[in-house]
């Protein structure tokens, strides 16, 4: 097995027992990036020199007996995370030459945990999109079939992990931007509870929905990453810590959403989801049908709240203090700015934003009610397997409807873990495990048991 194909857990063991060095591990990742980034376009910036310096320091620390959770581990960052002295573009021409003066809290925490940063990954500009095609630096390609989208908006992060260019990568999830690309690439993606991970220094999209998470090869690695990134941060007043009780899978009830079987799910995907359901039962969990009746309004609700907050967050880009002029926004950012400006404008606020924030309450109540009956819920991540590049790009509404199963978690502030459940015509798909706010430990427990039984993560794309 090549070093870059290792999981965080495996690599930590190998580094500790001196089977290989962080420099060797980092070089293996950089080599993989050099070989395949031209085709896949997963990275906007590769920080080779910095990475090798960090790897050298990590090796010294390992030799001196230091033990840190990510010591010597190569990690990629979505290019939405501010990195001191390293260009941070948000995938947009507006920030093409922007070099932040400080690190985001999560970046600082990952560095303090000993990680090696290999580069900044491609994304839909400003994290606006479900396919990766809205990047001003060209679309990222799906490593399982380069004619297909890798999912967005954290497209480069998902692809960099799936194609072994790094061991883990960070992402952001405002309406599905971690879970969707994770499912389209056969990797694990975590959208934590709102406020579990600090948003400070991460270019804001929609502030009441933004969740900061990551991509890993396994569920165990996802837990390691969260143990580093999570926690209260004085720089983000919405962060908080809460513990949730954990119980054995055999005592758990898992909910299947009754309405979702009627919501136009792809046939192959439906079969794979039924298999996952059977597998969970085999592992001892009980499954039962639950109802989330307001899901049918979730996309409409989300596409009012999110553009409203986007228009407000993107108002700061004046092209004077940093970045270039506003005409350099791409089409999708322009659409969202205009939509949000409209829905927040005088005379329309009550009919749109306020109404949507009330419907949001009803969606949240659906989950509260469901979680009185079950410990977790499983659903598809996307209604379809990955689609072809170009297929939805000229029809924004069609693109928006790909988020139907993911946006509800952001509206309710709950965590979601996307895990691989198999392949449809050679392309990966996933399910998401949803739980109450701050129940990440429970999601890891279910995801881990399922992953151990199925081992989909061992399947790799042929590059």
């Amino acid at each position: 097995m090549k070093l870059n194909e290792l999981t965080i857990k495996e690599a930590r063991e190998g580094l500790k027992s001196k089977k290989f060095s962080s420099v060797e591990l980092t070089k293996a990742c950089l080599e993989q990036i050099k070989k395949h980034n031209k085709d896949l376009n997963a990275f906007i910036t590769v920080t080779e020199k910095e990475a090798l310096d960090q790897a050298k320091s990590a090796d010294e620390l390992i030799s001196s007996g230091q033990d840190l959770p990510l010591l010597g581990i190569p990690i990629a960052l979505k290019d939405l995370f501010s990195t001191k002295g390293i260009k941070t573009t948000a995938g947009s021409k507006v920030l093409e030459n922007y070099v932040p003066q400080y690190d985001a809290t999560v970046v600082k925490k990952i560095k303090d945990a000993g990680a090696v940063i290999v580069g900044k990954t491609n994304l839909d500009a400003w994290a606006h999109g479900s396919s990766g095609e809205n990047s001003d630096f060209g679309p990222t390609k799906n490593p399982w079939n380069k004619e297909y989208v890798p999912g967005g908006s954290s497209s480069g992060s998902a692809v960099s992990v799936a194609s072994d260019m790094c061991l883990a990568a960070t992402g952001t999830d405002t309406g599905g931007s971690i879970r969707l690309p994770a499912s389209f690439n056969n990797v694990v993606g975590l959208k934590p509870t709102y406020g579990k991970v600090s948003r400070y220094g991460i270019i804001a999209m929609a502030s009441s929905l933004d969740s900061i998470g990551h991509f890993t090869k396994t569920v165990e690695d996802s837990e390691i990453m969260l143990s580093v990134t999570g926690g209260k941060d004085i720089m983000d007043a919405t962060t908080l810590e809460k513990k949730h009780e954990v119980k054995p899978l055999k005592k758990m009830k898992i909910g299947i959403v009754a309405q979702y079987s009627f919501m136009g799910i792809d046939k192959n995907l439906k079969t794979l989801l039924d298999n996952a359901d059977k597998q969970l039962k085999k592992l001892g969990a009980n499954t039962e049908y639950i109802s989330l009746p307001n899901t049918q309004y979730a996309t409409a609700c989300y596409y009012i709240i999110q553009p409203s907050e986007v228009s407000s967050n993107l108002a700061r880009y004046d092209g004077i203090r940093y970045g270039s002029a506003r005409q350099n926004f791409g089409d999708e950012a322009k659409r969202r700015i205009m939509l949000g400006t409209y829905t927040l404008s005088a005379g329309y606020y009550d009919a749109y934003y306020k109404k949507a924030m009330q419907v949001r309450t009803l969606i949240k109540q659906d989950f509260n009610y469901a979680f009185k009956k079950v410990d977790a819920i499983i659903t598809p991540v996307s209604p379809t397997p990955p689609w072809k590049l170009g297929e939805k790009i000229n029809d924004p509404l069609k693109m928006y409807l790909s988020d139907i199963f993911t946006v509800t978690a952001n509206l309710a502030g709950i965590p979601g873990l996307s895990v691989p459940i198999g392949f449809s015509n050679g392309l990966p798909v996933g399910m998401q495990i949803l739980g109450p706010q701050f129940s990440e430990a429970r999601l890891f427990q279910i995801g881990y048991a399922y992953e151990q039984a199925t081992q989909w993560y061992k399947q790799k794309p042929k590059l």
Partner: protein
Amino acid sequence: MKIDVVHVAKLANLPLKSEEKEKFEKQLSEILSYVEKLKEVNTENVEITSQVTGLENVTRKDEAKPSLSQDDALSNTKSQHNGFFKVKAILTE
């Protein structure tokens, strides 16, 4: 639903090319028609959710702390004068 793209773009300080207007007007009108769906929902006496984990009035002590230096703060601008950001005049005679 029809949206006045020119007016909205002006409010958002967003320069639009003339060929963009028609495209955006069609796309945005379609999206607005879709979100009209929310009108079906009865939201009488329903509170809004703006802080989803229920936090209220999170405060900290108002203490001065080290921050970016002036040079750092200006490091990304092309528009500066004597250590200040230089902006276009907003008042005219």
